[in-house]
């Protein structure tokens, strides 16, 4: 009969109106500045640099300034200058490090290609979304100090992915050590310094897990 559909519709809205007062499922809006939304784990927007140690961020950057990401970046928003000297990394080996590492977030298109090409798991995607600023040029160009964030933070925002990365890195390190040990045992020659971790299989394992939301 004419009108039953109208009444059904009215019932739906009335249920929602009343339900919004007692049923959290019917009142899904968060009052943003006070209540922050819980982001899905797969959420990502801009890259950051992973450091091993929160107390000495500049000393323990995973980045070795190989400049692959700079070359791969489609909008070319990454700028890297290699250091002239070498510093010991987290494992204690001397490495080249980025003297300048800058990302222009106003140009970045959040494609995540830098993350996928990085052979050292040194650059990852962040979840920081409150990046509005009144300074159009300076504040959106992030430098090394602003980009560096500790591994613990990475664990916080992408837990499953970070565990995988850590496990893989530990595995690689162990394999490299074993290889070095074997080489040392085989040759027992003193020429076994700088076993740069270059197992060719490593980057292929980089493909990130499909987002859990799917």
């Amino acid at each position, binding site marked *: 009969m*004419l009108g039953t559909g109208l009444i059904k519709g009215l019932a739906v*809205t009335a249920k929602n109106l009343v339900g919004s007062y007692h049923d959290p499922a019917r009142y899904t809006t968060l*009052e943003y500045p006070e209540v922050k939304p819980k982001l899905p784990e797969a959420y990502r927007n801009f890259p950051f640099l992973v450091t091993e140690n929160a107390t000495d961020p500049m000393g323990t950057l995973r980045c070795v300034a190989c400049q692959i990401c700079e070359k791969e970046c489609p909008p070319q928003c990454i700028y890297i200058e290699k250091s002239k000297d070498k510093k010991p990394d987290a494992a204690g080996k001397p490495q080249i490090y980025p003297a300048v590492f800058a990302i222009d977030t106003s140009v970045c298109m959040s494609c995540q290609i830098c993350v996928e090409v990085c052979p050292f798991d040194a650059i990852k995607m962040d979840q920081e979304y409150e990046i509005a600023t009144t300074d159009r040029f300076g504040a959106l160009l992030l430098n090394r100090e602003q980009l560096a964030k500790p591994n613990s933070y990475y664990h916080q925002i992408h837990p499953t992915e970070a565990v995988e990365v850590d496990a893989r890195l530990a595995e690689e390190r162990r394999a490299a050590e074993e290889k070095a040990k074997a080489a040392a045992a085989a040759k027992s020659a003193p020429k076994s310094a700088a076993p740069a971790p270059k197992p060719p299989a490593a980057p292929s394992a980089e493909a990130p897990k499909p987002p859990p939301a799917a």
Partner: protein
Amino acid sequence: MIAVAPTSDRFLEVAPLQLRDWFIGLLPQSLRWITSGLITVVAILAVFGLLFAYLTLAERKILGRVQNRPGPNRTGWFGLLQPFADGVKALTKEDVVPRDADQVLHYLAPVVLVALSLLGFAVLPFGRHLVPVELDAAVLYFFAAGAATELAVFMAGWASRNKYSLLAAMRALAQLISYELPLLLSFVPVVMLAGTLSTTEIVTAQGGWTGGWIPHWYVLTPWGFAGFVIFMIAALAESNRSPFDLPEAESELIAGHLTEYSGFKYALFFMAEYFGMCALSGMAVTLFLGGWQAPCAWLEFIPSYAWFAGKLLVLLLGFMWIRATLPRLRMDQLTRLAWKFLVPLALINLGTAAFWSLTAGWTGPLQLVRWAVALALVVTPFVVMGRRLTAGVAPRTYRYAAS
């Protein structure tokens, strides 16, 4: 202002009048007559102005709650200061007038609209003793004043010299012509049964209770209920409210006749929309819901104007509920609904009311026959014509991409 002799002299009933009389008594004789009228006007403006302010807030809150969000809640406690913030914003905004606009009409349209939409309040009986103007043909006056409002909408749309505004103006005219008819026809049975066009007498005719519990409101009769529903549908269309807000279709006509208005003139249009809604709801309360009469005998201790206000608010909330639910009609659907459905139903309803009036003397088991016949006269045309209206329109099915 008041011609009714007080029949009920309880303190709360007469308090507003006594307050006014006390104040007028302080003035010199020559000023009393004009002050008495002015106080009425100021009281109506103040009450309905404030009601307008909080209706906008209530509407936004209700729409928000229906859509799983809280609505305005930042300005003041629970957003209670929001209307005033909006008012300040509207007042301080720049008033932009298009260069090619018809300057005079563009300026006049909102003013005329608000003035016309306020006229209707003059004859509404707000309480037992609270009738601003007693008129013999009050109902006719009310609808004559209401019929002219769409002229202002037309002026706004035409003066803006904007094609969307002009489309809105034409839509507004077509809509008014279409819905004036069911609106007028739907209350003719009330006039027939009450035998008067005066609003106070129509309310008086609905007084009394059966057994102290069931009020004699017209909405509780078969023809009265049908008339009430038709009246409310037509009132929705006349006050340009969703789902009949075609003149102001913000998604197709970029707000239609309001496109070229900004600042306080824009606020005036909104004020007029809410005033029109309040006036029509007040008329519906008067004609069908027993005006200021209490629903039960023992509830009469509550003053009459409180009952009127309560019924008015219920109807206004109904308006908002409908706005939150129903999508906008298409132009052809709008006019088809009016001409092919509401007008014939209203005409048949006239016959039903005539039958009801002729069989007023039936008692005992004949009373049941009377109810059955009247109900059949209301329900059968509704079902038959509803079927014709929706013939060929299958329930819409949706196909989603396979996930």
